[in-house]
C-alpha cells in the first residue's frame, strides 16, 4: 500500500526502476541520495541462508512510515522521499528496501536517507526469518541498530 511516499509490498521490485521514476519526478533537485538493502546469503552467525521471509503489521507500518517521512521532511529541506519495502519470501541478492531522498542540498539528502534507514531498522513493524540448511530462525534485533537510531534523537 502507498502512503505518502512509502510502499510495503509482497511483489519483487527493481531499485533501478524506482530510481528512474524518482529522478524523473525530481529533475529540479540538485541531489538524490538512495540506499538499497539487499538480502545477504549468510546470517549474522555466518550460516548460509537460502531464503528469507519478511512479515509485517500492515496497519501499523502504514502509520509508522507516513510519520517517519513527515519527520524527515521536518528535519531536512527535502523535495521528495520514497520508501519501498519488500515483505514475503526473498532469495539471496533480492532487494529488501529502497530509500530515496531528493534535496537541493546534498548533505540534507544524505543525512535524511541515513536517518530513514536507521529508523526503518528500529521502528518499522517488520520481522525477518532466515532459512538455512539447519532450519529457520527469526533474526534478532541488533543493539547496534538502536545505537545508530539513537544518534538522531
Amino acid at each position, binding site marked *: 500500500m502507498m502512503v505518502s511516499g512509502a510502499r510495503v509490498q509482497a511483489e519483487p521490485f527493481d531499485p533501478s526502476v524506482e530510481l528512474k521514476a524518482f529522478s524523473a519526478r525530481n529533475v529540479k533537485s540538485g541531489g538524490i541520495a538512495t540506499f538499497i*538493502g539487499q538480502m545477504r546469503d549468510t546470517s549474522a552467525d555466518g550460516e548460509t541462508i537460502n531464503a528469507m521471509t*519478511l*512479515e*509485517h*503489521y500492515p*496497519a*501499523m507500518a502504514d*502509520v*509508522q512510515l507516513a510519520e517517519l517521512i513527515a519527520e524527515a521532511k521536518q528535519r531536512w529541506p527535502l523535495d521528495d522521499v520514497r520508501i519501498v*519495502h519488500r515483505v514475503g519470501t526473498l532469495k539471496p541478492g533480492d532487494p*529488501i*528496501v529502497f530509500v530515496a531522498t531528493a534535496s537541493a542540498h546534498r548533505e540534507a539528502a544524505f543525512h535524511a536517507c541515513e536517518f530513514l*534507514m536507521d529508523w*526503518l*531498522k*528500529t*521502528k*518499522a*513493524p*517488520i*520481522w*525477518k*526469518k532466515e532459512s538455512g540448511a539447519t532450519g529457520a530462525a*527469526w*533474526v*534478532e*534485533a541488533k543493539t547496534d*541498530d538502536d545505537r545508530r537510531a539513537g544518534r538522531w534523537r
Partner: protein
Amino acid sequence: MKILYFAWMREKVGRSEEILDPPAGTQTVTQLIDWLAARSAGHGAAFANRKLVKVARDQVHVDHAASIAGAREVAFFPPVTGG
C-alpha cells in the same frame, strides 16, 4: 478487543489474531499479558520472556504500563528487524 501477534509470538500462540473480551479490571498492558499468558501453553510460551515483548495499542508503540482502556486493537511482537 482485537489481539494481534507477529513473528515468533504468532508462531508460539499458534494464531495471528483473536477477538477477545478481557475481564473487567484489565486496565494495563501488563494485566492484559497476565490474562493472555494463562490462556494456553502457546500463549504462555509467547509471553515467557516479557522483556522481549513489544506492544502497540491501536498501531502506536506503548510500554507495558500503558492503559488499554478503550483500545480497539492491541498487537504483541518481538523487537523489529526490518530495513
